């Protein structure tokens, strides 16, 4: 009668030991994974830091100004183009969605404004072909936003 009881407890102890060992191994494994992930985070943070420094170096205003002079010819916004603040300048209306293209809910298509350079000359006819928002007359109420196209036309006219 004593032997089966002893065997039972030995089995329980052995199972508990094995279980304990397995849990410990699993925890160690997880701990190792965590350590490795943390090491990777630290390494990536360092990489991000180095890349930020490089990005800042490559974005020196002097360098960008030189690139702009050579390739874009953008000029600062003239006060007459900015009546009421930049935020109040209306964006150009989005081009119509071609037939057959499903309309995506919640997505607003916004085209970038064209700078008042020779590029603008090619951009203006394209916008006129599109059903753009009706441009207000030049004597429009100043409290209402004026479209950027109108402002650029005015600016070009005044030069």
């Amino acid at each position, binding site marked *: 009668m004593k032997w089966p009881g*002893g065997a039972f407890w030995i089995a329980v102890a052995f199972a508990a030991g094995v279980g304990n060992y397995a849990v410990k191994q699993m925890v*160690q494994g997880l701990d190792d994974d965590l350590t490795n992930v*943390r*090491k990777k985070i*630290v390494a990536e943070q360092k990489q991000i830091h180095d890349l930020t420094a490089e990005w*800042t170096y490559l974005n*020196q*205003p002097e360098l960008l100004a030189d690139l702009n002079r050579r390739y874009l010819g953008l000029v600062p916004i003239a*006060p007459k183009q900015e009546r*009421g603040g930049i935020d109040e300048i209306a964006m150009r209306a989005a081009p119509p969605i071609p037939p057959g293209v499903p309309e995506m809910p919640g997505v607003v298509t916004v085209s970038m404004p064209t700078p008042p350079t020779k590029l603008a000359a090619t951009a203006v006819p394209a916008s006129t072909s599109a059903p753009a928002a009706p441009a207000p007359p030049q004597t429009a109420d100043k409290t209402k936003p004026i479209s950027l196209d109108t402002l650029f036309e005015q600016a070009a006219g005044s030069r």
Partner: protein
Amino acid sequence: MLSAQRLDDNPCRPRHFKPPPCAPVIADGAAAEFLDTTRTRLLLAASLFALIFIVVAGRLIDVVAMADGANDTRVARSHLVVPPPPVRADIVDRNGTLLATNLDSPALYVDSKTMLQAGEDPEAAARAITAALPDLSPADIRAKLASGKSFAYLTRSLTPRQEYAINNLGIPGVEFERGEKRRYPLGDLVAHVVGYCSVDNIGQAGLERGLNPAIKGSGKPVTLALDARVQFVLKDELQQVITQFNAKGAAGIIMNVHTGEIVAMASLPDFDPNHPPTTDPKRETADDKDRIFNKITSGEYELGSVFKIFNTAMALDNNVATMTSTFDARNPITIGRFTIEDYHGKHRILSVPEIFAYSSNIGSARMAVAAGAQRQRDFLGKLGLLEPVPIEFDKVEVARPHFPAPSAWREVNVMTIAFGHGIAVTPLHMITATAAMINGGILHPPTMLRVPDGAKVPGVRVISAKTSDQLRKLMRLVVEFGTAKLAAAPGYVVGGKTGTAEKNVGGHYEEKRLLSSFIGAFPMNDPQYVILTLVDEPHGNKESHGYATAGWTVAPATSRIIQRIAPLLGVAPVDEKSPTIVNALQIESLAGKKLEYN
């Protein structure tokens, strides 16, 4: 049991001694069964322990003899993995643009003893190293390699490419020492603001020096009030002024009038903080000194007519004069060996707005005399113009103003100080006090650090809101009708005051060596920012009709600066002809009066 009883019967047996039984006890029956069970259990326990020891031994063999990289992580487990704290914290501008940071940059050293023991030829090794690092002197490297010493730096900073090249040489005894080097990604753009560090990462100039404890201690980025974009515009325009007028140098500063935040500060010529000029007195040249000198905080100048802002404010705020008061400016004033005359002389009696707009020295001197030396000294003291400006730079980089001692503050001093001569202050003094003149009358200490949104800004009232309002109108008048018409920027309601001072060289004022300055603010109906620009020894040109005065040199530059930075600073243009703005800046006494253009 019987034998035990018999032994106990012996009366001579000591009570504490109990002899063992003389014969083994033969177990039988239940006792035999008990012994058998015990033996089995003992065997089982021994087997279990043997098994455990085998497992432990196996694991030991695995760890010691068959170890691979996987075990490294178990060693690291006990350590918390965190990035090493930077030697110095980053410095960023108000938009988070990196201005100063630390990058890994190992140093290269040689253990010459080891190298020589390994049989390496110092001559060949020096040739290989200098081929990879051409900036190093071959003779110097050769001497260090052959010295036999156990440590000598070959260079304190290597790029990753150089490190790779040297590592590839595989020279025994040539080793790397982990280290960081301070880098300034925007180069000379923020040279005088940020300053630079020594090879040991100790701040030597600028905020690197002034904020050294904070930068070394916290590890958190230090956020400046500076805006790198605005800084670029300021520097770009100042550089144009230097080129255009063949000037010796120029400087500029832009401040938020409500918080004292300095959003841009430039002093030209400047330097690249990644390769700063030497400060070793033996090797330092005049050019090095000039480039490293920050005109804004360290330069003291007799700024000339821009001081009339304070003179007029003093007279108005102390009720010595009103906007309708007049002063005789018909004839020059001769006092002692000095003769005070007007550059734009009208030779008539002028009102206070006219004195300001035409920058009359005679009128200003008479106004100051009416106030008296005591009031003048007290007023300038209240504006902080008689002591160094409290700012985050190290005190050795902030100049102490020069002015007469109270006992020597005579009438002639009162007169010359009225138009900015006989007192030398830094441009930082000038802009700080001017901000108080137009922001409603509160003097805020200037700061290079960003003021958090909504934070309470320290300040002390120095003039009444009414006087401040009057000064706004007067400064607007100067740009509309006075000496600074070229400073106008359509839509931004610019106001300001010009100052063209002859430089004092060896105790004499030299007519041809000018310091032209302009202090302007915008928009004058609700001032947000104030700008001070100055150019050192400009020369007139064809476009300026030979003039090198402030109205022709720095005033137009200020106009361009304002037009470029206003959109960046969120100041929207307005209709300058709108009744609201016209009424806000209208000087009642001049309503309907036609002013003479200069």
